[in-house]
C-alpha cells in the first residue's frame, strides 16, 4: 500500500472526485470478481468504453486487456501481499486500435485489511514505447553496421579519445576495442608525423567550428600496432548529438588499390620502355663518323612514346667504301610496323653489300616486302655518297614514294634532289631512278619524313614550301648540321603546338671543308 502522502488526514471535500475526474491517467476500480465498479473519464477515453455501459460488467471482457495467465497470477500474488503491481499491458479497443498502457494495480482493503477490490491506474505509453522501439532498432542497425561493416569505424570524443572501435578497425589496426577505448586516437592510429596536425585540426574545430576534413573523403596514412604505415581512405563526420562534439571516422585500407595502381603504372612504364627499346633498336644507337661530313638527326615519335613509330633512318659504310644514308617511313605503328621496319632496314644494309646502284637496292627491298606478304607500304629515300679522287662528292639518290631530300647550298639555294619513284611493298612493277647531285663544301643534304611536311595546325599544313623557306634561311646563315636538324624540329613543334600526331625524322648531312674519305 505504501505511503499516501503528507496531509492525507485532512483531504478537502471534493478532492477525490476532482482528482479522478481530471487526472491524465485511466482509473478503474473492480471488485474481486472482476466486475467494474468505477471508471474515470480518461479510462473511458483510453479503453474506448462509455462508463454507463461498463459499470457492473466484467472488466476482462470489456476492456480488451490482454494479460497472460502468468501476469494475472503475479498481479494476484502482489495484491495478496499488499503490494502494488506495475507493468505494461496491451489493450485492444473496440475500434481495433491497440494501446500500450503502463499500469499500476493496487488493492482495495477493508478496515480489517482484507482485499476487496482492485484499483487500476494506467497511462498511455504507446507513443513512448514506439519511440523506444525505434531507437532500439536504430541502435541495433548501427551496431550491426559497426560489427559487420567492412570499413573500420573509429569514433572519438571532443578530447580525441576513442569511444568506438569496430571489429573492422580491430582487424585493420591490430588492437582490440578494449585496448583502445578511452585512449587518444592520435597516439594509436595516426602516424607520428601527422599527430600534431591531427591535434591542431581537432583543436581548431572546437574553437572555430570549422573543420576542413569534415564530410570529405581523403586519402591519408594510418599506422597499425606493428608500426606499419599504410594508405587509408578516410571520411570524418560529426556525430549529431547534443553536448561537446564527437566524431566518427570511417576508414578503408587502400593498400591493395594503391598496389594495383602502382602495378598499372609500372606495366605502362614497362610498355613504354619496351616500345622505346624496340624503337631504338630500329635506329642506329650512335651515329657513325662520316668522313668529310657533319651529320645530325632529329627524331620524334608520335603520341606519348608508348608506340613504336614507323619512321626510321640509317647511316652506314657500304662494301664499296661509300657511305649510305637512308630514311624511311613504314605505314602504321606498333609491332607489325616495327617488324617491317626491321626487315627494310636490314634488307637495305644487306642489299648495299652486293648491289651498288641505289635503285637496285630499293628494288631488292620492294621484292623482300612483297615476298613477306605484309600488307603494308614503305617509303624510302636512299642516298649514296661517293667521293672521287679530285675531292668531288657525289650523292646518288633513289627515292621510292618518299618526299625528295632537299639539297641546300651555302647561299640559301634549296632544291629537291632526286626524282620521285614508287613506294615500296605495293606493286611488283615500280618506277625508280638514280639521280646524281654534286655536294660542295658547306652544302647540306636534308632527308626527312612526311611527319615534317604533314604537321598540322588547324586546317593548315606545315608543307614543303615552308620547309624549303626555313632551310634556305638557315643555310644562308651558315648554320651547322645540328643547328639545321634542331631548327627544323623546333619549327614543326611550334607549328603543330607539340601535338605530333605522326612520327617525324630528319637527317642532315653537311659537307665539311675537310677532305672526304
Amino acid at each position, binding site marked *: 500500500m505504501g505511503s499516501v502522502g503528507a496531509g492525507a488526514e485532512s483531504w478537502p471535500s471534493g478532492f477525490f472526485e476532482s482528482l479522478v475526474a481530471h487526472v491524465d491517467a485511466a482509473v478503474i476500480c473492480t471488485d474481486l470478481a472482476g466486475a467494474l465498479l468505477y471508471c474515470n473519464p480518461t479510462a473511458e477515453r483510453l479503453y474506448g468504453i462509455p462508463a454507463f455501459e461498463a459499470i457492473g460488467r466484467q472488466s476482462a471482457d470489456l476492456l480488451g486487456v490482454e494479460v497472460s495467465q502468468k501476469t494475472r497470477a503475479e498481479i494476484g500474488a502482489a495484491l495478496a501481499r499488499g503490494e502494488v503491481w506495475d507493468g505494461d499491458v496491451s489493450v485492444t479497443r473496440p475500434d481495433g486500435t491497440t494501446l500500450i498502457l503502463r499500469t499500476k494495480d493496487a488493492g482495495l482493503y477493508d478496515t480489517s485489511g482484507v482485499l476487496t477490490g482492485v484499483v487500476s491506474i494506467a497511462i498511455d505509453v504507446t507513443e513512448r514505447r514506439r519511440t523506444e522501439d525505434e531507437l532500439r532498432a536504430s541502435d541495433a542497425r548501427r551496431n550491426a553496421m559497426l560489427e559487420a561493416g567492412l570499413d573500420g569505424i573509429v569514433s572519438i570524443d571532443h578530447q580525441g579519445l576513442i569511444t568506438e572501435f569496430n571489429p573492422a578497425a580491430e582487424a585493420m589496426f591490430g588492437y582490440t576495442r578494449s585496448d583502445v577505448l578511452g585512449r587518444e586516437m592520435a597516439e594509436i592510429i595516426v602516424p607520428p608525423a601527422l599527430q600534431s596536425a591531427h591535434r591542431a585540426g581537432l583543436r581548431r574545430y572546437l574553437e572555430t567550428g570549422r573543420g576542413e576534413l569534415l564530410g570529405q573523403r581523403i586519402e591519408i596514412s594510418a599506422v597499425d600496432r606493428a608500426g606499419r604505415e599504410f594508405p587509408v581512405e578516410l571520411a570524418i563526420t560529426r556525430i549529431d548529438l547534443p553536448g561537446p562534439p564527437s566524431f566518427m571516422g570511417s576508414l578503408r585500407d587502400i593498400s591493395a588499390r594503391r598496389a594495383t595502381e602502382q602495378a598499372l603504372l609500372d606495366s605502362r612504364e614497362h610498355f613504354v620502355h619496351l616500345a622505346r627499346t624496340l624503337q631504338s633498336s630500329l635506329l642506329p644507337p650512335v651515329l657513325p663518323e662520316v668522313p668529310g661530313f657533319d651529320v645530325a638527326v632529329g627524331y620524334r615519335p608520335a603520341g606519348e612514346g608508348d608506340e613504336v613509330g614507323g619512321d626510321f633512318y640509317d647511316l652506314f659504310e657500304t662494301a664499296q667504301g661509300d657511305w649510305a644514308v637512308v630514311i624511311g*617511313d613504314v605505314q602504321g605503328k606498333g609491332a607489325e610496323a616495327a617488324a617491317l621496319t626491321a626487315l627494310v632496314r636490314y634488307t637495305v644494309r644487306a642489299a648495299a653489300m652486293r648491289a651498288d646502284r641505289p635503285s637496285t637496292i630499293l628494288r631488292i627491298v620492294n621484292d623482300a616486302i612483297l615476298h613477306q606478304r605484309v600488307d603494308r607500304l614503305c617509303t624510302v629515300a636512299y642516298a649514296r655518297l661517293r667521293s672521287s679522287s679530285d675531292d668531288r662528292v657525289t650523292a646518288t639518290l633513289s627515292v621510292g614514294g618518299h618526299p625528295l631530300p632537299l639539297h641546300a647550298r651555302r647561299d640559301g639555294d634549296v632544291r629537291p634532289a632526286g626524282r620521285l619513284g*614508287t613506294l615500296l611493298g*605495293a606493286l611488283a612493277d*615500280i618506277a625508280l631512278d638514280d639521280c646524281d647531285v654534286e655536294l660542295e663544301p658547306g652544302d647540306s643534304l636534308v632527308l626527312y619524313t612526311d611527319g615534317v611536311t604533314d604537321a598540322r595546325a588547324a586546317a593548315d599544313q606545315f608543307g614543303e614550301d615552308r620547309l624549303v623557306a626555313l632551310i634556305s634561311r638557315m643555310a644562308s646563315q651558315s648554320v651547322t648540321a645540328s643547328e639545321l636538324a634542331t631548327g627544323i624540329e623546333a619549327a614543326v613543334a611550334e607549328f603543330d603546338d607539340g601535338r605530333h600526331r605522326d612520327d617525324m625524322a630528319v637527317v642532315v648531312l653537311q659537307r665539311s671543308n675537310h677532305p672526304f674519305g
Partner: protein
Amino acid sequence: MTESFSVRVDRGDAVTTVTLTGEIDLTTRAAIDEAVAEALAEPRAPRLVVDLRAVTFIDSSGLSAAIVVPARAAEDAGLDFKVMSGPGATRALEVSGLDRFVQHDEID
C-alpha cells in the same frame, strides 16, 4: 579531323566508282576497306574507278586503302583500274609514285 570524310560506292554496268571526300588517313581506313570490298563484289563492272577529286588530305594509310588495295585486287580480277585525282591528292600521288593510275582524260 575526319568529320568531313565520306565514302560512296556507285555500281554501274560499265564502271564501279568509289568516291572519297575529305581527309583520308588511318582513322578512315576501315570504311574505305569496306567500300572497296563492296565495289569488288560480284557481279561487277569491268572497270573500277577511285575518285579522289574531293579529297582534301591523304596520307600513306589512305593511299594504301584507296589505291594500293583496289589496284592489286583489280589486277588479280583482271579489271581496269583508274584513279581520278584532285588538288588534295595530287601531291601525295606524285610522291608515292602511284600517279601512274591517274586517269588524265575526263570520263563521264
